[in-house]
């Protein structure tokens, strides 16, 4: 190694601790940005270039760098996201929080029409004094650092492409290069599709919320999203309260989402059918609940009691009730031999108050 390169290495070794500090500040700020945006990302990675790696770089193209300050990837970080638009959301905040060297920052996602390959957003930036300042270490603010933002699929392609062992694209034999480029195109489409699906889910959820708000229950398919929103408007609360009032009991919170499985098993397809069940059987569900607790030392009930009794009445009013009631308890509380006894007890109680 020539003297010039050795001087750069010496400068690197002298500042090694500061580089570690820069890395720490960078990772902390990137994580803060991600948290503020409410995002869930695949990874936030950071590293300080190892001396060996720097030596290799200098041996190849040391003539390009007048000093260590010209090497902008001594400290580097990478954020790998799930979705393409997450890259844009993170970049928007990153541009506000760091001093960006626009001349050297590159959006490598902007490829020409017939180009398929590496895609990533690269920033060269510095830590502003507003983020960190130590008068004894001005190099922390002066050092140029690199931040890469890309999606998981862009990361997969870049990693595999790098793993081929060829140091640059021009070294790759044409037949392999074509294969890699075809894959880059495929992954680009997949990224777009994931974004489309994610946007559609968001749109669907807001549509469902709107339909529930307008009480258009018959138009809403029963699924995890719709049931969660439906439960949020507490459609069974008045029934549960009415049952609880029999004993001046309090209601305790319960995971109502567990009933989705039961309602699906009962072949409810939309929220309108559940609303019909609620209207048709509310009185009988109350009478059953009252019959079960009146005069007993019970002053606390699960908030799910209303829905539970509605399902029981629904089953009692349909064919095969004994077996179906056993299966109901199997679904709700797990399979147990004693569930048949519970089914028999409920049929007896329902007969006592002329529900069946």
């Amino acid at each position: 190694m020539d003297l010039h390169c050795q001087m750069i290495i010496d400068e690197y070794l002298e500042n090694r601790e500061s580089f570690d500090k820069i890395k720490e500040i960078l990772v902390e700020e990137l994580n803060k940005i991600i948290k503020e945006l409410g995002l869930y990302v695949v990874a936030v990675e950071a590293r300080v270039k190892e001396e060996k790696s720097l030596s290799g770089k200098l041996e190849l193209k040391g003539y390009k760098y007048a000093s260590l300050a010209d090497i902008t990837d001594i400290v580097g970080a990478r954020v790998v996201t799930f979705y393409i638009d997450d890259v844009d959301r993170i970049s928007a905040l990153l541009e506000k929080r760091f001093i960006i060297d626009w001349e050297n920052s590159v959006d490598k996602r902007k490829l020409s029409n017939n180009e398929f390959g590496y895609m990533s957003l690269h920033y060269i930036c510095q830590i502003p004094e507003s983020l960190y300042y130590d008068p004894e270490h001005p190099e922390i603010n002066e050092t140029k650092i690199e931040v890469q933002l890309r999606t998981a699929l862009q990361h997969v392609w870049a990693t595999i492409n790098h793993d081929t062992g060829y140091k640059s694209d021009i070294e790759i034999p044409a037949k392999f290069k074509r294969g890699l480029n075809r894959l880059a195109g495929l992954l680009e489409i997949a990224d777009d599709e994931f974004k489309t699906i994610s946007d559609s889910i968001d749109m669907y959820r807001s549509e469902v919320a709107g339909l529930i708000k307008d009480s258009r229950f018959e138009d809403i398919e029963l699924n995890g999203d719709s049931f969660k929103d439906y439960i949020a408007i507490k459609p069974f609360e008045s029934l549960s309260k009415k049952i609880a009032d029999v004993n001046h009991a309090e209601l305790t919170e319960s995971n109502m989402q567990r009933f989705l499985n039961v309602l699906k098993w009962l072949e409810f397809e939309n929220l309108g059918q559940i609303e019909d069940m609620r209207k048709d059987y509310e009185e009988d569900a109350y009478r059953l609940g009252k019959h079960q607790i009146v005069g007993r030392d019970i002053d606390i009930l699960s908030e799910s009691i209303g829905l539970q009794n509605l399902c029981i009445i629904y089953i009692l009013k349909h064919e095969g009730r004994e077996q179906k009631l056993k299966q109901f308890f199997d679904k709700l509380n797990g399979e147990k031999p004693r569930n048949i006894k519970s089914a028999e007890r409920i049929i007896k109680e329902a007969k006592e108050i002329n529900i069946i």
Partner: protein
Amino acid sequence: MEIKKQKEGTNLTINLAGRLDTTTAPQLDNELKSVLDGIQNLVMDFEELEYISSAGLRVLLGTEKVMKKQGQMVIRNANDTIMEVFEITGFADILTIE
């Protein structure tokens, strides 16, 4: 009510015998408060428990909330009378009953 405790590392089994009601529930509550620290698996064995009232349900509910943060609570061998209470109160789907 009789309370027997068996602890093995982070596993704790509590055997209850008698009636868990307004009179005895505070006793169980106090016992549990002193032993739950560091427990990851709590088994409440009701083989010899004859009866449970709302006061007992409240202790179970409070214990379930504590155990949810640090591990799990399972209720075993509940008799038909107790199971009926769990079912008609809707507690059967709040508690983990084996």
